[in-house]
């Protein structure tokens, strides 16, 4: 017989946070990951899961202005935080310039990695308006793409940076 019985109930904790400008409050188990919170509680399914060892970055979101892997953050850790996810990039239906650049440069195929890459790019360009190739590679070192071989992603990020400077 198994020696451990599961506790009857796990006490839930209240989490209040802002995602893409909108405030949400939910009661969640302390073990719930932020990515599960976004996907299952808020139905924001644009943020994806691709691994279980913080490798792939499909789950990347911006938390208080810094990119984090939402699979490696508990929802309760985001209490009081402001988040930006892929769903918050477009404005009034218009694609964000970074999204447009990814489209124009064919920077995606299946699109599964794309939400995470868009957020990592957003973070990069917030801090560095003229990234060189090395900066770009480093900025997305934690984002795995299995389809594109990265070539067009490099081009997309460069294009997004150039467009931003031109604008």
């Amino acid at each position: 017989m198994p020696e451990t019985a599961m506790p009857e109930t796990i006490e839930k904790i209240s989490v209040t946070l802002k995602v893409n400008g909108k405030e949400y409050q939910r009661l969640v188990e302390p073990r719930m990951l932020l990515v599960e919170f976004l996907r299952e509680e808020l139905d924001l399914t644009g943020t994806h899961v691709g691994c279980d060892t913080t490798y792939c970055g499909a789950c990347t979101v911006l938390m208080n202005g810094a990119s984090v892997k939402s699979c490696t953050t508990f929802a309760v850790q985001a209490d009081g935080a402001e988040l930006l996810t892929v769903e918050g990039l477009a404005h009034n239906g218009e694609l964000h310039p970074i999204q447009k650049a990814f489209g124009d440069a064919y920077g995606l195929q299946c699109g599964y990695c794309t939400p995470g890459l868009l957020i990592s790019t957003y973070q990069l360009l917030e801090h560095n308006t003229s990234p060189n190739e090395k900066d770009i590679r480093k900025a997305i070192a934690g984002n795995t793409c299995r389809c594109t071989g990265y070539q067009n992603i490099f081009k997309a990020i460069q294009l997004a940076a150039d467009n931003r400077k031109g604008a």
Partner: protein
Amino acid sequence: MADEKQNGKRWVGASLPRKEESRLLRGLGKFADDIKLREMLYLRFVRSPYAHARIVSVDTSAAEALPGVACVLTGAEIAAQTQPFIEIGPGPAQNIKDYPLAVTRARYQGEPVAAVVADSAALADDAAELVQVEYEALDPVMDAEDALTDKSILHEGAATNQVWNGVWEFGDVEQAFRDAAYVVNIDRMHFHRFSSTPLENNVVIGQWDPKDEHIYYQCNNSFPSFAVQFLSSHLGVPIDRIRVQTADIGGSFGIKITSYPQMAVCALASKKAGGRPVKWVESRSEHMVSSAHGNERTFRKTRVALDRDGVITAIDSHHIDDCGAYPRYEPLGCVIWSQVFPGVYRFKNARIDFTQAVTNKCPVGPNRGYSRMQHLWFLERVVDICAHQIGIPADEMRLKNYVRPEEFPYLTPNGCIYDSGNYPKMLEVGKKLIGWDDWKAKQAAARAEGRLIGIGIGTTLDSGTNNFGQSQIVNPYAPFSGNSQGANCKLDIYGEVVVAVGSCPQGQGHETTAAQVVADVLGIHPDKITVRTGFDTERNVHTGFSGTYASQFAVSGLSAVHGAAQKLKAEMKRLAGHVLETTEDDLEFGSGEQGPEVRAKSTGKSINYWGLANIVNVNSAVLPEEMYDVTLNCRYVWRAPFKVPDKERKYGQLTLTYASQLHIAVMEVDRETFIPKILDYVAVDDCGTVINPPIVEGQVYGATAHGIGAALMESCVYDEVGNMLTSTFSDYIPITAVNMPKVKYGHVCTPSPHSYSGAKGMGEGGAAPIHTISAALQDALYASGVFIHDSFNNADSIFRVLAKKEGGQLAELVKLEKRAQANGATK
């Protein structure tokens, strides 16, 4: 009115932005894990920690007692109510019993033994921990050659670990060896196990609905029409009662063909849970240990005959394929390699003895370049090492042995027809892009300083659109042959152009390329065409071959779409001719003020698509009786013109098109760290007529990254007792933006005479980087006495071979015999 062309040109061939982008860029893709259904349950597997063990008992009581657990399923329960999956292999392989959960024995680490279903994913996790399985460990068999000794048998019923054996022999091999000027003997080479690991893991939502006794699937399986054939006989449910839908899929590369066992478990669990939908989302670690890996292959006792000029005249070799614990989609891989029997080379005499064995490792499945890349790597190693041994420069050796441009369509020794190609041209383009002479000079200078720099060429093939008749070479009773794809093109009730096709794309842009094809037929803008996303058995467009695999959409998929669009156009002409009171020759297609329309040139009168659809659908009293067969809803099935191959001789046309790739790499091995580094890289591609250039270019880059990753970083490693050591991404290390070199892309176009558009299937890429990197490393390390005998080479393996002299020693593995005839050979 205007025929809406792209700058006056056809849409096919245009760099049209992808239709898929709008939703994918916004995070609004429709991936399987995004779906939530009423009353949905979550499934977790309990997996074997042993590679080989007898299952003594499974105690599910504690798990079942946990509140929120709907049910637990065991292998024994499944075996009691289902038939084992179909086995494709003949003879003893027919006695392998394959169920989706292990019944009496676990045969690889990670094999599912029980399934727990609960109200939430977290609860299912908790409950899975409570299932108690008692195992009795058995001897694991971790190597295919060991397996063939049958000391420890995996499948009792089969009584042997050999799944299949067959000999391909063409020409006069022995005569060629008697006449040879050089004979090169290679003792052993090995192609490693890896997987292209799509970023999205497998996902299945299955519901066995008691209301209508149908099974409903929403999932990301990439060959649903194959899955339903396996599921129907396994579950004993008529095939018309199994609905499979896919939407956006986060990559597959062939691997997701193999999710049908998990699909079976979800359906059976749903049945046990009273019909509630059951969702299973695979974790990455589960994917690594138990979805599917690519085939591992060992090449033994290879003999190569060459004439005095270095032209290969014969190859004789023994190939042993390791398919893991269950053959499943195998042993199709036992024949699929022979689609590229001579690779890109002209030799006519060859004998390949091919054997496949089961081992206590994850079952293999089709993985980008499936079964052919192993063989192509073997041939590339052969050509490359022979060049080194005889002392012929790498590029010259290729030119001496390539099939020549004027020989196309080229009949291979085993009856395949290479449709078109120009390998010397590709080499020329590749050499120019990389700056061949420059690098040669730099290499010489660097070598003088003691640096280890190598330049390697890899030439490969991506055969597309299979003749499934080759399955009969494996098993003469296999009821498969030919190939087909279905599509539907219609005007909806308000005249919208809607296209559906039996593919299930995973990023290849099918919605875009299908719209380009239809746009050219109807003379309208692709934006005015809706192409359905994903696959659905109830769309009634699929055939038994439908899905997305094996480099074929540009041929089979787009030919089906083209056929359906032509059929629709013919009906529209008949109807418009009647309405506009003119002859069909007088009609032109395009767009006018009222949208897409058909117009009479003589009178200028026109009818738009709404008008045509209106008559057929909701205003049919005005339709004359002789036009009652006009539906404006046209299904077309495209069939590849194949015959059943000669099973005895293993001879026949096995594939329709042959895209080719030529890569060149310049590499350096660091003398201190042994890290192999790519200094320069070129990929030249020829897939005939290109439908959408950036999409093709993207596929080339993607396949290149997979190959580079596989050659240098990615390997499925097991220890001697069968623990998988690379069971997470952090251990497996899929290639990242930091490791991926810049790729210089080149293009050659030899249109295929075998497809309506001249296009060839592409996307798998023939694993060109693996061949190329092996060749470059060989060039770097030849003078150090190293033979690149394995397809996987990282710093650690190079250190072992180069510094510790563990394996890979040229002098031990490769022997050159110079015969009398070699005297006077041109060098």
